[in-house]
């Protein structure tokens, strides 16, 4: 693989990676959000695989396969299952409306969210400039994309109400961090990556259970119903 092709492919993968994060902000239907997240998992796996092919490191390819399996396969599957458990008629209980399946009223509306995503991407580029200047290769030039995804993930956490959207926000954050590790340092050792992946899997399992319990307790998954954590 020559340099030109590699750069093109890497930029394509990173572009898809960022686009998927923006799509999470843009979409309202929770199933579509999960689909966008799965797409991002594919893009992340592609980044890892490209780096592995480029540097001829077998273990990076194995890590890429693992990431693809986990983030494009297992996690979206778990989330879909959590969604299906709460769908109308799924458990035979009456549902007031279909809003459980949609992110109807985010704290910041969609247009403003997209604008914020653009600003956060600018910020990521501005912050990463000195890092890129240290070693300006095609790989490090893509670093701001990973930082932007971290910020967008955090933004999703702050502004979305549904528990599932929160999970996706958290996973976006984690995807961004993983991508930063790949782009800045060609990945962390496989054992660390394995540990992190296991952690993420557990977190999603727990959050899935939490979502189900919330629905049972409050009849909805808006996390604004959780207000016990306060002084007094």
């Amino acid at each position, binding site marked *: 693989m020559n340099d030109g092709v590699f750069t093109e492919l890497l930029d394509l993968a990173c572009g898809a990676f960022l686009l998927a994060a923006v799509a999470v902000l843009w979409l309202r239907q929770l199933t579509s959000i999960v689909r966008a997240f799965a797409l991002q998992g594919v893009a992340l796996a592609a980044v890892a695989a490209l780096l592995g092919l480029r540097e001829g490191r077998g273990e990076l390819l194995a890590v890429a396969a693992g990431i693809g399996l986990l983030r494009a396969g297992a996690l979206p599957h778990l989330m879909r299952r959590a969604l299906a458990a709460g769908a109308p008629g799924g458990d035979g209980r009456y549902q007031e409306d279909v809003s459980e399946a949609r992110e109807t009223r985010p*704290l910041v509306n969609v247009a403003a969210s997209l604008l914020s995503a653009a600003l*956060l991407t600018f*910020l990521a580029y*501005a*912050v990463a*400039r*000195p890092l890129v200047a240290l070693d300006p290769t095609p790989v490090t030039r893509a670093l701001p994309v990973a930082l932007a995804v971290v*910020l967008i993930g*955090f*933004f999703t*956490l*702050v*502004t979305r*109400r549904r528990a599932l959207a929160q999970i996706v926000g958290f996973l976006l954050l984690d995807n961004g961090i993983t991508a930063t590790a790949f782009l800045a340092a060609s990945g962390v050792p496989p054992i660390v990556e394995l540990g992190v992946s296991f952690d993420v899997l557990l977190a999603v399992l727990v959050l899935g259970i939490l979502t189900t319990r919330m629905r049972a307790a409050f009849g909805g998954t808006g*996390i*604004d119903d*959780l*207000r*016990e*954590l*306060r*002084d*007094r």
Partner: protein
Amino acid sequence: MNPAGTAVALAAGLAAAGAAAGALLPGRARVPAVGLCTAGLGTAGLVAGAAALDGARWSARLPGLLPPAGVHLAVDALSGLFMAVAGAVVLAVAVYGIGYAAGRGPHGVASRGVQAALPVFALTLVLVPAAASVSTFLLLWETMALTSLVLVLAEQRGRASVREAGVWYAVMTQLGFVLLLAGLALFAAGAGGETFTALRAGAPALSPAARGTVFVLMAAAFASKAGMVPLHPWLPRAHPEAPSNVSALMSAAMVNLGAYGIVRVAFDLLGGGPRWGWLLVLGTGALSAVHGILQAAMASDLKRLLAHSTSENLGLVLVGVGAAGLFASAGHPLPAALALAAAFLHVVNHAVFKALLFCAAGSVARATGLRDLDRMGGLRARMPATAGFFAVAALGAVALPPGNGFISEWLLLQSLIEGLTVPGLSTAVVLPLAVAVIALSAGLSAAVFVKALGVGFFARPRSERAAAATESPPGMLAGMGLLGLGCTGLALVPGMLGDGLSRAVAVAGFGGGPPLAGDGLELRLEHLAASLSPLWAAGALTAGLLAALALVRVTARRGRRSHVKLWDCGGGAPTARMSYTATSFAEPLQRVFDDVLAPEQDVDVTPVRASTYLVERVRFRRRVPDRIEHRLYRPLIAAVDRLGEAARGLAPGSAHRYLGYGFCGLVALLLTLAVSR
């Protein structure tokens, strides 16, 4: 090896042994073992200090301890003076403490935690003056604060007032520590090193603004430890609520370190402070002296009275220190050295008599469970030894001959009057005022201690507890005896200290020869044709007193003695309730200082239900609140409280809000980073 070094090592070893004994030994063996270790530690401190006062110097560096910087220790005459005072007090109070804590329950003063903290506290009292680097000093200082806090809280079980005192003490002492940390960090950064040697070398390079800031920060920090107005409110709370042996240690040894800190940092390390700074120190001292003694005059809680008197005496010490700085900054080393020597001598005198006073108060509290003077009385007949020791110490505290306090206050007055020769408007205005303040506080302290001794120990008992009092065990009396000997010795032969004091003053670096000289019988002021021979004065006084007594005896024989009943206005025999109490004794003084003290009183009349003309009950209540505390701390605490309440609004329970804080923080940080690059 140097005797001072050996003694310091021995003291550290004994403290470790004492702490281990306190933590591990069971019930009955614990208190004597800890007491013996602590007494040995005090002796070692006294020996090290005495050797240093005799001219020995010692320094050590232990790089293995406290790894990044290592521990630096150095003993010179100035540290020696304060080590000797602390060591002597620790020795006597530890002997006293064995009797005091023996036989107490498993909680309180005989408990594991308290007994383990006691030797550590005693060690820090002895070692703080020996610290020779910023990190060592701060470590010892903070250990001292923490262990003393544990000791203050010893009897907190079921007593809210002790916990309140603990909170005040903890907050004020940590506030002081923050100031100290800031000041020393600033100083070390400016001087380019953290050992005292480096600070001394780097001090001349500091800018005047930096010098002023360091001076003010350090002076405030040390003044809070010395209980100076307006950083004093912890003192009249913590000292009364602590067990009496701890109060004695705190009041006689710990507060001195505030004065030590100012002298060490301002004179020795900084090489003299700004003139306005010294005026500030002098003014604070004078204000504290008057405020402390006035509050003591109004207090009817015996230990609270003693605590306020501590504030007064340390105020007088700071008057001396401030005057010394003032004279030195004007280029007059001789009166400066004399004023500093007077301040040092007052530190020594105050330590001994105040330790004895607190021990005697603890002895009374142990026998009767009372601290309220209004309910005491008649203790002289029931506790003659305690009463005698209290009288000896009170004589020292009233600044009248032949007490030991008189000598240092006389020296202080001499130095201030001598200082009038220093030209300048500030000295011309300030020094006469300072002289007046010393005179006023001396006069008031006479009233205070007449009240404490007369109302507390003489006349008839005013409560059943006081009537049932018995003398304290011999261990406590032995400790008090040591302190009583110290008081008498300092009163009769202060000349013994002359050379040592001169060496300690020389560390301050005024130049111009020793201020004092003396032999056993006489204390001479060099450069000033004045001397004092207290032994002769005391002898003459005793002879005069004996002659007067004999005269009375002789003349009384002439007349015929007849026993008749007093005329009692038909009201029956006078009862103990009719005798003078501490409150009634202080009433005239309170009237004189009505405008200053602003007492609060309310009269509550309850009429009989059937008639408005007949009264069932009249309740009269008067409080004399600490005005500075009311005006300064109440609004401050209320404001902090309101801020705290408002801050609760930051945590409404919304997870989005909490996540938002994190996100905004991160974005703000990144923005700053992006903009500032």
